[in-house]
Protein backbone atom coordinates (compact mmCIF):
# COMPACT_ATOMS: atom_id res chain seq x y z
CA UNK A 1 0.00 0.00 0.00
CA UNK A 2 2.67 2.44 0.92
CA UNK A 3 4.63 1.32 -2.13
CA UNK A 4 1.72 2.31 -4.32
CA UNK A 5 1.55 5.85 -3.02
CA UNK A 6 5.27 6.30 -2.91
CA UNK A 7 5.85 5.08 -6.44
CA UNK A 8 3.10 7.24 -7.81
CA UNK A 9 4.48 10.28 -6.04
CA UNK A 10 7.89 9.35 -7.40
CA UNK A 11 6.60 9.29 -10.95
CA UNK A 12 4.97 12.66 -10.43
CA UNK A 13 8.22 14.12 -9.22
CA UNK A 14 9.95 12.61 -12.21
CA UNK A 15 7.72 14.37 -14.65
CA UNK A 16 7.46 17.74 -13.03
CA UNK A 17 10.83 18.61 -11.56
CA UNK A 18 13.73 19.54 -13.81
CA UNK A 19 16.64 17.18 -13.71
CA UNK A 20 19.13 19.87 -12.93
CA UNK A 21 18.00 20.67 -9.45
CA UNK A 22 19.19 17.63 -7.58
CA UNK A 23 18.65 19.20 -4.21
CA UNK A 24 15.09 20.10 -4.95
CA UNK A 25 14.35 16.64 -6.30
CA UNK A 26 15.88 14.90 -3.32
CA UNK A 27 13.96 17.10 -0.95
CA UNK A 28 10.72 16.39 -2.75
CA UNK A 29 11.41 12.68 -2.77
CA UNK A 30 12.08 12.76 0.95
CA UNK A 31 8.85 14.67 1.43
CA UNK A 32 7.02 12.04 -0.62
CA UNK A 33 8.60 9.22 1.38
CA UNK A 34 7.49 10.62 4.72
CA UNK A 35 4.12 11.55 3.31
CA UNK A 36 3.37 8.10 1.97
CA UNK A 37 4.58 6.57 5.20
CA UNK A 38 2.33 8.74 7.34
CA UNK A 39 -0.59 8.36 4.96
CA UNK A 40 -0.38 4.60 5.05
CA UNK A 41 -0.12 4.56 8.82
CA UNK A 42 -3.46 6.26 9.05
CA UNK A 43 -5.01 8.86 11.26
CA UNK A 44 -5.13 6.76 14.38
CA UNK A 45 -1.47 7.24 15.21
CA UNK A 46 -0.20 10.35 16.92
CA UNK A 47 3.04 10.45 14.99
CA UNK A 48 1.40 10.07 11.62
CA UNK A 49 -1.00 12.91 12.34
CA UNK A 50 1.79 15.16 13.54
CA UNK A 51 3.94 14.25 10.55
CA UNK A 52 1.17 14.97 8.08
CA UNK A 53 0.47 18.28 9.76
CA UNK A 54 4.12 19.22 9.58
CA UNK A 55 4.43 18.27 5.92
CA UNK A 56 1.27 20.06 4.91
CA UNK A 57 2.31 23.18 6.71
CA UNK A 58 5.69 23.18 5.00
CA UNK A 59 4.30 22.42 1.56
CA UNK A 60 1.59 25.02 1.82
CA UNK A 61 4.05 27.66 2.89
CA UNK A 62 6.36 26.74 0.07
CA UNK A 63 3.59 26.72 -2.47
CA UNK A 64 2.41 30.17 -1.58
CA UNK A 65 5.84 31.42 -0.77
CA UNK A 66 6.83 34.97 -1.41
CA UNK A 67 9.69 36.99 -0.03
CA UNK A 68 7.74 37.87 3.06
CA UNK A 69 6.64 34.40 4.01
CA UNK A 70 10.12 33.07 3.44
CA UNK A 71 11.44 35.57 5.91
CA UNK A 72 8.83 34.38 8.35
CA UNK A 73 9.59 30.70 7.95
CA UNK A 74 13.33 31.03 8.16
CA UNK A 75 13.81 31.75 11.88
CA UNK A 76 12.62 28.49 13.41
CA UNK A 77 11.32 28.90 16.88
CA UNK A 78 12.72 26.02 18.76
CA UNK A 79 10.37 25.41 21.60
CA UNK A 80 12.46 23.94 24.35
CA UNK A 81 11.28 20.48 25.30
CA UNK A 82 11.18 20.86 29.04
CA UNK A 83 12.58 17.90 30.98
CA UNK A 84 9.63 16.06 32.42
CA UNK A 85 9.67 14.29 35.72
CA UNK A 86 9.41 10.56 36.20
CA UNK A 87 11.18 9.61 33.01
CA UNK A 88 14.79 9.23 31.94
CA UNK A 89 16.65 12.23 30.64
CA UNK A 90 17.19 10.67 27.24
CA UNK A 91 13.49 10.85 26.56
CA UNK A 92 13.86 14.44 25.35
CA UNK A 93 16.04 13.39 22.45
CA UNK A 94 13.51 10.75 21.55
CA UNK A 95 10.76 13.30 21.65
CA UNK A 96 12.61 15.49 19.22
CA UNK A 97 13.12 12.59 16.84
CA UNK A 98 9.66 11.14 16.76
CA UNK A 99 7.14 13.51 15.15
CA UNK A 100 4.62 14.79 17.61
CA UNK A 101 6.67 13.56 20.49
CA UNK A 102 6.57 16.72 22.53
CA UNK A 103 2.94 16.42 23.46
CA UNK A 104 2.93 12.83 24.60
CA UNK A 105 3.44 11.19 27.92
CA UNK A 106 6.31 8.78 28.23
CA UNK A 107 4.19 5.68 27.97
CA UNK A 108 2.58 6.60 24.68
CA UNK A 109 5.91 7.94 23.47
CA UNK A 110 7.38 4.45 23.70
CA UNK A 111 4.37 3.04 21.95
CA UNK A 112 4.55 5.56 19.13
CA UNK A 113 8.28 5.05 18.82
CA UNK A 114 7.78 1.35 18.28
CA UNK A 115 5.26 1.89 15.51
CA UNK A 116 7.35 4.67 14.01
CA UNK A 117 10.41 2.43 13.88
CA UNK A 118 8.41 -0.28 12.17
CA UNK A 119 7.05 2.06 9.52
CA UNK A 120 10.41 3.75 9.01
CA UNK A 121 12.24 0.49 8.49
CA UNK A 122 9.70 -0.78 5.98
CA UNK A 123 9.87 2.52 4.12
CA UNK A 124 13.65 2.25 4.01
CA UNK A 125 13.39 -1.29 2.70
CA UNK A 126 11.00 -0.16 0.01
CA UNK A 127 13.28 2.65 -1.10
CA UNK A 128 16.27 0.31 -1.15
CA UNK A 129 14.37 -2.09 -3.37
CA UNK A 130 13.39 0.72 -5.71
CA UNK A 131 16.95 1.98 -6.00
CA UNK A 132 18.23 -1.54 -6.42
CA UNK A 133 15.88 -2.40 -9.21
CA UNK A 134 16.49 0.86 -11.04
CA UNK A 135 20.23 0.71 -10.97
CA UNK A 136 20.45 -2.95 -11.91
Amino acid sequence: MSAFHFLRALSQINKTTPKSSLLLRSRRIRHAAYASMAYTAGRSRLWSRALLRRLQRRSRLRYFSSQRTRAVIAPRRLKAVRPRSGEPSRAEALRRLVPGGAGMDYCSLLDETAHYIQCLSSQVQLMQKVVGSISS
Partner: protein
Amino acid sequence: MEPTRSSDAGSGNSGTYTPEIAESIRFEEEIQSLMRENTMHPGLEPPPVGGGGSSFTALLGLPANQAVELLHEPESEESPAVAIASASGGEMWRFRLRDPKALTLPSGCSPTFPSNAALVERAARLSVFATEDSPEAASVPSHSGDRSTKPKAEPADSDSQPICPIPGERPQRPAKRKEADKGNKVKGPAKKTKSAEEGSAKGAEENTSGSGEKLPYVHVRARRGQATDSHSLAERARREKINARMKLLQELVPGCSKISGTALVLDEIINHVQSLQRQVEVLSMRLAAVNPRIDFSGLDSFLSAECGRVTVGDGRCGGGMEQSAWMEATAVNEGRRQQQQIWHVDSVHPHPTPSVWERVDSPHLFINPGTSLFGYDPSNSVASLHSNQLKTEL
Protein backbone atom coordinates in the same frame (compact mmCIF):
# COMPACT_ATOMS: atom_id res chain seq x y z
CA MET B 1 -22.18 -25.46 16.06
CA GLU B 2 -21.04 -25.36 19.63
CA PRO B 3 -23.67 -27.74 21.03
CA THR B 4 -22.97 -30.30 18.32
CA ARG B 5 -19.30 -30.18 19.07
CA SER B 6 -19.79 -30.71 22.74
CA SER B 7 -22.25 -33.48 22.13
CA ASP B 8 -19.77 -35.23 19.85
CA ALA B 9 -17.12 -35.01 22.47
CA GLY B 10 -19.58 -35.98 25.14
CA SER B 11 -20.69 -39.09 23.36
CA GLY B 12 -17.22 -40.48 23.16
CA ASN B 13 -16.18 -39.87 26.74
CA SER B 14 -17.34 -40.05 30.27
CA GLY B 15 -16.88 -37.76 33.20
CA THR B 16 -18.62 -34.77 34.62
CA TYR B 17 -16.41 -32.17 33.01
CA THR B 18 -16.36 -33.65 29.56
CA PRO B 19 -18.53 -31.24 27.57
CA GLU B 20 -16.88 -28.30 29.22
CA ILE B 21 -13.47 -29.67 28.59
CA ALA B 22 -14.25 -30.15 24.94
CA GLU B 23 -15.51 -26.61 24.86
CA SER B 24 -12.39 -25.40 26.53
CA ILE B 25 -10.29 -27.16 23.96
CA ARG B 26 -12.28 -25.50 21.23
CA PHE B 27 -11.81 -22.17 22.98
CA GLU B 28 -8.09 -22.69 23.15
CA GLU B 29 -7.98 -23.61 19.50
CA GLU B 30 -9.96 -20.52 18.69
CA ILE B 31 -7.66 -18.43 20.78
CA GLN B 32 -4.71 -20.03 19.13
CA SER B 33 -6.00 -19.38 15.66
CA LEU B 34 -6.93 -15.88 16.65
CA MET B 35 -3.46 -15.29 17.98
CA ARG B 36 -1.91 -16.76 14.92
CA GLU B 37 -3.95 -14.53 12.68
CA ASN B 38 -3.56 -11.38 14.61
CA THR B 39 -0.18 -11.46 16.16
CA MET B 40 2.50 -10.53 13.74
CA HIS B 41 4.88 -9.51 16.38
CA PRO B 42 8.21 -11.35 16.10
CA GLY B 43 8.44 -11.91 19.80
CA LEU B 44 5.21 -13.77 19.98
CA GLU B 45 5.18 -16.61 17.51
CA PRO B 46 2.48 -19.23 17.40
CA PRO B 47 3.32 -21.72 20.07
CA PRO B 48 5.82 -24.30 18.92
CA VAL B 49 4.53 -27.80 19.05
CA GLY B 50 7.82 -29.13 20.31
CA GLY B 51 7.92 -26.72 23.19
CA GLY B 52 4.40 -27.47 24.19
CA GLY B 53 5.36 -30.31 26.44
CA SER B 54 7.98 -28.46 28.46
CA SER B 55 5.82 -25.44 29.10
CA PHE B 56 2.92 -27.69 29.94
CA THR B 57 4.91 -29.31 32.71
CA ALA B 58 6.03 -25.87 33.82
CA LEU B 59 2.40 -24.91 33.95
CA LEU B 60 1.62 -27.97 35.97
CA GLY B 61 4.02 -26.78 38.59
CA LEU B 62 2.10 -23.59 39.11
CA PRO B 63 -0.29 -23.49 42.01
CA ALA B 64 -3.20 -21.91 40.26
CA ASN B 65 -3.49 -24.64 37.64
CA GLN B 66 -5.37 -27.38 39.37
CA ALA B 67 -7.90 -27.12 36.59
CA VAL B 68 -5.25 -28.19 34.12
CA GLU B 69 -4.63 -31.31 36.13
CA LEU B 70 -8.30 -31.96 36.26
CA LEU B 71 -8.38 -31.68 32.51
CA HIS B 72 -5.42 -33.94 32.18
CA GLU B 73 -6.94 -36.87 34.00
CA PRO B 74 -10.05 -37.79 32.08
CA GLU B 75 -8.87 -36.75 28.64
CA SER B 76 -5.55 -38.34 28.12
CA GLU B 77 -5.72 -38.56 24.37
CA GLU B 78 -6.54 -34.92 24.04
CA SER B 79 -3.83 -33.72 26.33
CA PRO B 80 -1.45 -32.73 23.54
CA ALA B 81 -4.05 -30.31 22.23
CA VAL B 82 -4.65 -29.02 25.71
CA ALA B 83 -0.95 -28.83 26.32
CA ILE B 84 -0.33 -26.87 23.19
CA ALA B 85 -3.31 -24.65 23.77
CA SER B 86 -2.50 -24.06 27.39
CA ALA B 87 1.12 -23.62 26.50
CA SER B 88 0.14 -20.96 24.05
CA GLY B 89 -2.00 -19.28 26.66
CA GLY B 90 0.72 -19.73 29.23
CA GLU B 91 3.38 -18.34 26.96
CA MET B 92 1.20 -15.44 26.18
CA TRP B 93 0.48 -14.75 29.81
CA ARG B 94 3.98 -15.33 31.02
CA PHE B 95 5.32 -12.99 28.42
CA ARG B 96 3.41 -10.22 29.96
CA LEU B 97 3.12 -10.97 33.65
CA ARG B 98 6.31 -11.84 35.32
CA ASP B 99 4.81 -13.01 38.53
CA PRO B 100 3.83 -16.66 38.18
CA LYS B 101 1.31 -16.41 40.95
CA ALA B 102 -0.47 -13.82 38.97
CA LEU B 103 -1.14 -16.07 36.02
CA THR B 104 -4.72 -16.08 34.98
CA LEU B 105 -4.40 -19.07 32.75
CA PRO B 106 -7.13 -21.04 34.51
CA SER B 107 -9.61 -18.74 32.92
CA GLY B 108 -8.89 -20.60 29.71
CA CYS B 109 -8.58 -24.07 31.12
CA SER B 110 -10.90 -24.03 34.05
CA PRO B 111 -14.10 -26.00 33.81
CA THR B 112 -16.15 -22.90 34.48
CA PHE B 113 -16.55 -20.79 31.42
CA PRO B 114 -17.76 -17.26 31.81
CA SER B 115 -18.47 -17.07 28.13
CA ASN B 116 -16.88 -17.98 24.86
CA ALA B 117 -16.95 -14.45 23.72
CA ALA B 118 -15.51 -13.08 26.92
CA LEU B 119 -12.67 -15.55 26.83
CA VAL B 120 -11.78 -14.90 23.24
CA GLU B 121 -12.16 -11.22 23.79
CA ARG B 122 -9.87 -11.19 26.80
CA ALA B 123 -7.27 -13.39 25.25
CA ALA B 124 -7.32 -11.39 22.09
CA ARG B 125 -7.17 -8.13 23.97
CA LEU B 126 -4.30 -9.35 26.04
CA SER B 127 -2.44 -10.60 23.03
CA VAL B 128 -3.00 -7.15 21.71
CA PHE B 129 -1.56 -5.73 24.87
CA ALA B 130 1.50 -7.87 24.42
CA THR B 131 2.11 -6.88 20.87
CA GLU B 132 1.28 -3.23 21.33
CA ASP B 133 0.17 -2.69 17.84
CA SER B 134 -2.75 -0.56 16.95
CA PRO B 135 -3.90 -2.31 13.75
CA GLU B 136 -4.21 -5.40 15.73
CA ALA B 137 -5.72 -3.57 18.60
CA ALA B 138 -8.55 -2.30 16.53
CA SER B 139 -8.63 -5.47 14.50
CA VAL B 140 -9.14 -7.53 17.59
CA PRO B 141 -12.24 -5.80 18.92
CA SER B 142 -13.87 -6.04 15.52
CA HIS B 143 -12.75 -9.64 15.20
CA SER B 144 -14.02 -10.60 18.59
CA GLY B 145 -17.05 -8.47 17.99
CA ASP B 146 -17.92 -10.84 15.18
CA ARG B 147 -17.55 -13.74 17.51
CA SER B 148 -19.48 -12.11 20.27
CA THR B 149 -22.51 -11.52 18.05
CA LYS B 150 -22.87 -15.19 17.28
CA PRO B 151 -22.91 -16.84 20.68
CA LYS B 152 -25.24 -14.30 22.19
CA ALA B 153 -27.38 -17.01 23.68
CA GLU B 154 -24.45 -18.77 25.22
CA PRO B 155 -23.31 -16.01 27.57
CA ALA B 156 -26.78 -16.01 28.97
CA ASP B 157 -26.55 -19.72 29.64
CA SER B 158 -23.05 -19.77 30.96
CA ASP B 159 -23.59 -16.64 33.00
CA SER B 160 -25.19 -18.64 35.69
CA GLN B 161 -22.15 -20.83 35.94
CA PRO B 162 -19.46 -18.44 37.09
CA ILE B 163 -21.63 -16.92 39.75
CA CYS B 164 -21.33 -20.16 41.66
CA PRO B 165 -17.78 -21.19 40.91
CA ILE B 166 -16.26 -24.33 42.18
CA PRO B 167 -14.62 -23.13 45.37
CA GLY B 168 -11.80 -25.60 45.12
CA GLU B 169 -10.81 -24.33 41.73
CA ARG B 170 -10.24 -20.75 42.64
CA PRO B 171 -8.40 -20.51 45.90
CA GLN B 172 -5.86 -18.16 44.44
CA ARG B 173 -7.94 -16.19 42.06
CA PRO B 174 -5.64 -14.38 39.64
CA ALA B 175 -4.03 -11.49 41.32
CA LYS B 176 -3.45 -9.29 38.36
CA ARG B 177 -6.11 -8.85 35.75
CA LYS B 178 -5.32 -6.00 33.52
CA GLU B 179 -8.15 -5.13 31.21
CA ALA B 180 -6.39 -1.96 30.22
CA ASP B 181 -7.91 -0.36 27.21
CA LYS B 182 -5.70 -0.40 24.22
CA GLY B 183 -7.42 1.87 21.81
CA ASN B 184 -7.62 5.01 23.93
CA LYS B 185 -4.89 5.62 26.38
CA VAL B 186 -7.12 7.05 29.08
CA LYS B 187 -6.25 5.64 32.44
CA GLY B 188 -9.42 5.21 34.41
CA PRO B 189 -9.27 5.18 38.16
CA ALA B 190 -7.44 2.12 39.30
CA LYS B 191 -9.66 -0.10 41.33
CA LYS B 192 -8.00 -2.33 43.86
CA THR B 193 -9.67 -5.54 44.89
CA LYS B 194 -8.11 -7.02 47.93
CA SER B 195 -10.40 -9.74 49.20
CA ALA B 196 -10.50 -13.11 47.52
CA GLU B 197 -14.27 -13.57 47.39
CA GLU B 198 -14.75 -10.04 46.24
CA GLY B 199 -12.11 -10.61 43.62
CA SER B 200 -13.57 -13.83 42.31
CA ALA B 201 -17.12 -12.56 42.18
CA LYS B 202 -16.03 -9.33 40.62
CA GLY B 203 -13.81 -11.25 38.26
CA ALA B 204 -16.73 -13.28 37.05
CA GLU B 205 -18.83 -10.21 36.57
CA GLU B 206 -16.05 -8.36 34.85
CA ASN B 207 -15.48 -11.26 32.54
CA THR B 208 -19.05 -11.35 31.44
CA SER B 209 -19.58 -7.62 31.36
CA GLY B 210 -16.36 -6.94 29.59
CA SER B 211 -17.15 -9.17 26.69
CA GLY B 212 -18.85 -6.56 24.63
CA GLU B 213 -17.14 -3.34 25.67
CA LYS B 214 -13.77 -2.05 26.72
CA LEU B 215 -13.25 -1.66 30.45
CA PRO B 216 -11.83 1.64 31.57
CA TYR B 217 -10.62 0.28 34.91
CA VAL B 218 -7.29 -1.24 35.60
CA HIS B 219 -7.82 -3.90 38.21
CA VAL B 220 -4.77 -4.55 40.23
CA ARG B 221 -4.35 -6.50 43.39
CA ALA B 222 -1.65 -5.78 45.87
CA ARG B 223 0.99 -8.44 45.96
CA ARG B 224 2.39 -9.96 49.09
CA GLY B 225 4.93 -7.81 50.84
CA GLN B 226 4.29 -4.71 48.79
CA ALA B 227 2.72 -1.40 49.64
CA THR B 228 -1.00 -1.24 49.19
CA ASP B 229 -1.09 2.49 48.80
CA SER B 230 -3.24 3.65 45.95
CA HIS B 231 -0.48 5.82 44.58
CA SER B 232 2.09 3.09 44.65
CA LEU B 233 -0.28 0.66 43.01
CA ALA B 234 -1.02 3.04 40.20
CA GLU B 235 2.66 3.72 39.85
CA ARG B 236 3.42 0.06 39.74
CA ALA B 237 0.83 -0.46 37.03
CA ARG B 238 2.33 2.38 35.07
CA ARG B 239 5.82 1.01 35.52
CA GLU B 240 4.71 -2.39 34.29
CA LYS B 241 3.22 -0.81 31.21
CA ILE B 242 6.41 1.09 30.51
CA ASN B 243 8.53 -2.00 31.04
CA ALA B 244 6.39 -4.02 28.69
CA ARG B 245 6.74 -1.40 25.97
CA MET B 246 10.45 -1.14 26.53
CA LYS B 247 10.69 -4.86 25.98
CA LEU B 248 8.85 -4.57 22.70
CA LEU B 249 11.15 -1.77 21.61
CA GLN B 250 14.15 -3.85 22.53
CA GLU B 251 12.96 -6.57 20.26
CA LEU B 252 12.36 -4.15 17.43
CA VAL B 253 15.77 -2.58 17.55
CA PRO B 254 18.42 -5.06 16.45
CA GLY B 255 21.12 -5.76 18.97
CA CYS B 256 19.22 -4.26 21.85
CA SER B 257 18.13 -7.38 23.65
CA LYS B 258 21.49 -8.07 25.21
CA ILE B 259 21.82 -4.59 26.64
CA SER B 260 20.65 -4.27 30.19
CA GLY B 261 19.67 -0.99 31.69
CA THR B 262 17.11 1.45 30.52
CA ALA B 263 19.38 4.36 29.66
CA LEU B 264 21.55 2.35 27.29
CA VAL B 265 18.54 0.84 25.64
CA LEU B 266 17.09 4.29 25.13
CA ASP B 267 20.36 5.41 23.61
CA GLU B 268 20.25 2.50 21.22
CA ILE B 269 16.70 3.29 20.24
CA ILE B 270 17.59 6.89 19.58
CA ASN B 271 20.57 5.85 17.51
CA HIS B 272 18.45 3.47 15.52
CA VAL B 273 15.81 6.09 14.75
CA GLN B 274 18.50 8.56 13.74
CA SER B 275 20.16 6.03 11.48
CA LEU B 276 16.84 5.19 9.84
CA GLN B 277 16.14 8.84 9.15
CA ARG B 278 19.63 9.31 7.74
CA GLN B 279 19.09 6.31 5.50
CA VAL B 280 15.90 7.87 4.20
CA GLU B 281 17.83 11.01 3.31
CA VAL B 282 20.59 9.11 1.56
CA LEU B 283 18.17 6.96 -0.37
CA SER B 284 16.17 9.98 -1.47
CA MET B 285 19.37 11.55 -2.79
CA ARG B 286 20.15 8.38 -4.70
CA LEU B 287 16.66 8.19 -6.06
CA ALA B 288 16.85 11.77 -7.20
CA ALA B 289 20.08 11.07 -9.02
CA VAL B 290 19.01 7.82 -10.62
CA ASN B 291 15.37 8.45 -11.27
CA PRO B 292 14.88 9.78 -14.79
CA ARG B 293 14.36 6.38 -16.39
CA ILE B 294 11.11 5.40 -14.73
CA ASP B 295 7.85 5.14 -16.58
CA PHE B 296 4.60 4.48 -14.80
CA SER B 297 1.90 4.44 -17.42
CA GLY B 298 0.13 1.15 -16.84
CA LEU B 299 1.15 0.92 -13.24
CA ASP B 300 -1.67 2.87 -11.72
CA SER B 301 -4.59 0.65 -12.62
CA PHE B 302 -2.59 -2.48 -11.96
CA LEU B 303 -1.55 -1.39 -8.51
CA SER B 304 -4.98 -0.21 -7.55
CA ALA B 305 -6.29 -3.64 -8.41
CA GLU B 306 -3.53 -5.13 -6.32
CA CYS B 307 -4.36 -2.87 -3.41
CA GLY B 308 -7.94 -3.97 -3.54
CA ARG B 309 -6.85 -7.57 -3.29
CA VAL B 310 -4.07 -7.18 -0.80
CA THR B 311 -5.82 -6.50 2.46
CA VAL B 312 -4.68 -9.56 4.29
CA GLY B 313 -1.05 -10.42 4.65
CA ASP B 314 1.64 -8.24 6.09
CA GLY B 315 2.87 -5.08 4.55
CA ARG B 316 6.13 -6.60 3.52
CA CYS B 317 4.58 -9.16 1.28
CA GLY B 318 2.23 -6.56 -0.10
CA GLY B 319 5.18 -4.36 -0.85
CA GLY B 320 6.90 -7.26 -2.53
CA MET B 321 3.96 -7.89 -4.78
CA GLU B 322 3.73 -4.27 -5.71
CA GLN B 323 7.42 -4.22 -6.30
CA SER B 324 7.22 -7.10 -8.76
CA ALA B 325 4.28 -5.43 -10.44
CA TRP B 326 6.26 -2.23 -10.74
CA MET B 327 9.24 -4.00 -12.20
CA GLU B 328 7.05 -5.68 -14.74
CA ALA B 329 5.53 -2.33 -15.61
CA THR B 330 8.92 -0.74 -16.16
CA ALA B 331 9.97 -3.63 -18.34
CA VAL B 332 6.81 -3.30 -20.39
CA ASN B 333 6.92 0.45 -20.68
CA GLU B 334 10.32 0.68 -22.20
CA GLY B 335 8.76 0.84 -25.61
CA ARG B 336 5.65 2.82 -24.79
CA ARG B 337 6.91 6.30 -24.24
CA GLN B 338 3.91 8.03 -25.74
CA GLN B 339 1.75 7.14 -22.77
CA GLN B 340 3.65 9.56 -20.60
CA GLN B 341 0.94 12.07 -21.10
CA ILE B 342 -1.31 10.14 -18.78
CA TRP B 343 0.92 11.11 -15.96
CA HIS B 344 1.16 14.72 -16.89
CA VAL B 345 0.42 16.72 -13.83
CA ASP B 346 0.17 20.40 -14.31
CA SER B 347 0.37 21.49 -10.72
CA VAL B 348 3.13 21.42 -8.22
CA HIS B 349 3.58 18.02 -6.68
CA PRO B 350 2.97 18.73 -2.99
CA HIS B 351 -0.14 20.69 -3.64
CA PRO B 352 -2.69 18.10 -4.78
CA THR B 353 -1.66 15.51 -2.29
CA PRO B 354 -2.76 17.26 0.91
CA SER B 355 -6.20 17.86 -0.51
CA VAL B 356 -6.35 14.23 -1.54
CA TRP B 357 -5.51 13.13 1.96
CA GLU B 358 -8.05 15.35 3.56
CA ARG B 359 -10.75 14.19 1.25
CA VAL B 360 -9.96 10.54 1.58
CA ASP B 361 -8.99 10.33 5.20
CA SER B 362 -12.20 11.47 6.76
CA PRO B 363 -14.35 8.43 6.02
CA HIS B 364 -11.54 6.09 6.95
CA LEU B 365 -10.63 6.78 10.51
CA PHE B 366 -10.59 3.21 11.68
CA ILE B 367 -8.30 0.31 11.04
CA ASN B 368 -8.95 -2.64 8.81
CA PRO B 369 -9.42 -5.94 10.56
CA GLY B 370 -6.79 -7.34 8.23
CA THR B 371 -3.32 -7.98 9.38
CA SER B 372 -1.47 -5.56 7.18
CA LEU B 373 1.36 -3.77 8.85
CA PHE B 374 -0.21 -0.38 8.51
CA GLY B 375 -3.77 -1.50 8.68
CA TYR B 376 -5.11 1.11 6.34
CA ASP B 377 -7.01 0.37 3.21
CA PRO B 378 -8.68 3.24 1.43
CA SER B 379 -7.75 1.60 -1.84
CA ASN B 380 -11.15 1.68 -3.50
CA SER B 381 -11.86 5.32 -2.87
CA VAL B 382 -8.29 6.34 -3.64
CA ALA B 383 -8.27 4.43 -6.89
CA SER B 384 -11.53 5.96 -8.05
CA LEU B 385 -10.39 9.39 -6.94
CA HIS B 386 -7.19 9.17 -8.86
CA SER B 387 -8.82 7.73 -11.92
CA ASN B 388 -11.17 10.71 -11.83
CA GLN B 389 -8.20 13.01 -11.64
CA LEU B 390 -6.58 11.26 -14.53
CA LYS B 391 -9.71 11.53 -16.61
CA THR B 392 -10.02 15.23 -16.02
CA GLU B 393 -6.43 15.81 -16.97
CA LEU B 394 -6.70 13.81 -20.16
